[in-house]
């Protein structure tokens, strides 16, 4: 089975709030000096899901694809260290400034170019913009079935059994192959790579494809192909206030607290 994992390198979601800055003129996030970008945590879980399938099904291959700048090599290497076999970086100035649609478009083109892919696994959303569109976008582009927000993915006779997280439980769907799945954090912690694997991954070469390599028209990708227009980027103002709950007895205090929480529509 040939599995493709889509991985995105994002600004560190653990950037301390006080250091997180927005350039309101350019409508862009200002990179924080000294804080390196990281692999989107949901994508690490996508890799974990793919590797679990690979372990169960013999003769499998996992390819990791990332669309990004040269620095995204680090995210690819991380997935390679976890146990993926090959890495592809889609790096082209033409890809800059794109939206979910152009990203899905480019990734789908790369998957087509790979050829023999049985399944694509993505994180449920990238932890920077939290759009959650690319996974299904790829499915749409490729004309494959898609299932989102999975907590478990198992291979079963030429299909994938996918447990999808619902608000009130989960459902299991049987996905004929090829298919696109997005996984959620309910899948569990991604594995910690063995040092031997880290060293092997460091030696692997990552293939780089440009828009031309994928046969994509520059107008269909990046800012040019983008259908989303960013109006304004703003930083939410964080603030806090303290309300002391009064009451003569602990019971009365608890009651007052419960009432206050209810009034605030928290419970």
């Amino acid at each position: 089975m040939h599995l493709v994992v889509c991985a995105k390198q994002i600004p560190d979601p653990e950037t301390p709030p006080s250091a997180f800055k927005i350039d309101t003129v350019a409508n862009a996030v200002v990179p924080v000096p000294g804080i390196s970008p990281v692999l989107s945590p949901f994508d690490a879980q996508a890799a974990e899901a793919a590797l679990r399938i690979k372990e169960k099904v013999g003769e499998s291959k996992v390819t990791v694809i990332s669309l990004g700048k040269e620095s995204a090599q680090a995210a690819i290497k991380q997935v390679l260290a976890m146990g993926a076999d090959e890495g592809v970086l889609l790096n082209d100035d033409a890809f800059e400034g794109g939206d979910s649609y152009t990203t899905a478009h480019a990734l789908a083109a790369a998957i087509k170019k790979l050829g023999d892919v049985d399944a694509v696994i993505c994180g449920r959303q990238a932890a920077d913009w939290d759009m959650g569109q690319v996974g299904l976008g790829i499915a749409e582009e490729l004309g494959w079935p898609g299932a989102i927000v999975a907590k478990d993915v198992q291979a079963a006779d030429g299909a994938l059994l996918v447990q999808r997280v619902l608000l009130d439980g989960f459902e299991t769907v049987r996905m004929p192959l090829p298919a696109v799945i997005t996984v959620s954090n309910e899948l569990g912690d991604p594995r910690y790579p063995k040092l031997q694997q880290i060293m092997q991954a460091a030696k692997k070469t990552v293939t780089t494809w440009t828009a031309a390599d994928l046969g994509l028209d520059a107008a269909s990708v990046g800012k040019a192909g983008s259908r989303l227009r960013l109006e304004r980027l703003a930083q939410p103002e964080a603030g806090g206030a303290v309300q002391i709950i009064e009451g003569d007895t602990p019971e009365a205090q608890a009651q007052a607290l419960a009432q206050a929480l209810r009034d605030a529509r928290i419970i």
Partner: protein
Amino acid sequence: MLTARGSDQRSDIRPVQSRARLLGAWWGPALGLSALGLITSVEAERTATREIFFNVAQPWAVYVFTASLVGLLIYGFGRHATLWAIGQPTPNLRDEVSQRLRNAVRLGLAQEKIGRDRYAAVMHWCIFSSIVVLTFVTAQVAIDDDFSLHFLRGPYYLFFSFYGDLFGLVGLVGVGMALYRRYIDNLHRIHWDERLEDHLIIWGLGLILLTGFAVESLRITVDELVQHPDWARWSFVSFGVAHFLALFEFEEPQLLSAHVWMWWGHLVLAMGWLGLIVFTKLDHMFFAPINAFLLRTDSPGRLTKIENIEEREVFGVGQIQDFTWKQLFELDACVSCGRCTAVCPANIAGQPLSPMHLIQDLKLHLADVGPAIQHAGHEGHDVRAVSPLAMVGEVIKDETLWACRTCGACVQECPVLIEHVPTIVDMRRYLVMDEARVPATAQAALENLEQRGHPWRGATLTRTSWMEGLGEVPIFDGSQEYLYWVGCAGSLVERNLPVTQSVFRLLREAGASFGVLGQEETCSGDPARRLGNEYLYQILAGQLVETFKAKNVQRVITNCPHCFNTFKNEYPQFGGRFEVLHHTEFLAKSLQQGDLKPQYPIAEQVTYHDSCYLGRMNGVYEAPRQIIEFLPGAKVTEMQRSMSRGLCCGAGGGNMWLEEVGARRVNHVRAEEAMQTGAQSVISNCPFCIQMFEDGIPAVQPQEEGRMRVFDVAELLDRAVFGTDGAGRGSQSS
């Protein structure tokens, strides 16, 4: 709950010259008595002697026994040696030979560590000295006879009789103390791994001494008592017994027959007992001094560096043959005394680690699979395929390895100089680097170190947050004398910010020339190394050494004892040699020089908690205590476990980032101990200790009113120098 005995708190921190006093206390009285005997015996009869092999018809049997014993010892130790030989080369053994020889004498022969339990010290000295002297006595008899030297005559014979009896008696006192401890006092730790050999050894020794006296007494009753009572008097114990026997007026043949039986009984017991050396913990009489010679000569705070890590196939120790032969050797030195386990914080809290059982389990595993591994190696087969059990995981459980705080209490106590901590960390290295089997919380910390250069997942502060409100904070540019190293905990964990700010204000007040790195600080790598990720540690340490060199750092003051330890003891492994001070060392000096003037009272009952990496690992016990003495009005009550016996807060060895498994949490135990002193505040010197106390105190003192508080020494000194209302501590730049 297991609690340690022997609370003679400061006895273990002896100045150097008192080692001589220690030795004097052991041998002085015995030598004095002997000398007295020697002087008086010179005045005595010059013809005094006795017949060797008196009343014994087949003396040659002694030589048969001796030959078999020697053969057995050679065979037994040879077998041990083949097992040690499956281990890896032991580095640095040829360095510091004079230090090693000193260790062999001081820790091996003079048994300095045994003194940490005074009862055991007296007991062991009695038994040890009696065996040494009586072996010497027996050897003289043999030499006298074999070489027809006949020096056992005249005054020397009388003196010989005297000290023979004296040390026989000393031995019996020792055996008596041992029997009391094992069967009446029931000391817990010696029963944790009790075996048949423990009973055999002590009863056997007692019987040997008793039969020895019986043989001598019977001979004297028959012979000397009648002919030379003035000679017989020198064998003062047997002389008394002989007098007692004489009361019964036995016939001479009866006495002679009893003598023969006793003689043979004594011989068989003695030879049999010596034979036990090969099969039991008695082998420590050779292994302990040798292990003292093999003991590391550098700091206990330093873990071994894996050289050429990128070229290795196995990074940690996953199988028994991955240990160095020294690590295998020391398994055999263990006598199961339980001292390590009695002081282990994990064990005290009922968590799944007992250093003694860990060593014993490894020893057993070595005996189990060692011969097959040795054979496979010899035949050129794959040695890694031999063991049916996974050493890491099955013989030693993962949870056991993670429970270790690397606090070094076990190493500190071990009378036979076993180094448990490096052995445990070697196995952790296997878990982390070879198997990638890491508890989720520790994995998060390690990943955070890799990605963000600090172990604090979810930190919301930045490395410069602590600077707010302090005025101008000098950035280190190579022109200042000291680099003030704040550390990840000191800048990213909210509770520790006031400590950093206090140290900063005090350094400024003391007029120190210093700067900080601010945003450029990264983790020293210590958590990675303690958690077993040596590769990550080497990357972090290597980078930081380069940064320090590039910035021309010569002297460093650290907030955190863990950074302190790794800078001081481990960075030289990467070519980084800097003068490193913990803030308490610097502040104590400033106070002594009068650069800081505490004037506001801290009228509090306090207790002081030694962090392991400042105290036990680096011997800084006094500086923080000196600072506390400078605090006007503060009264210190020491905890029962303090200084080198101090108990870990629970966070060491990466346990800051591990979930605790077991009956209790170590920090609850320690908070309770601090509480028992009646202190209003517990004072420490380490950001981890402080966090552990912050969590632990409310658990053992649920009532908020009057609850004990925890401070860094610097916080209290800050209050004493600047006052509680912060007068004069604002943002002026001195």
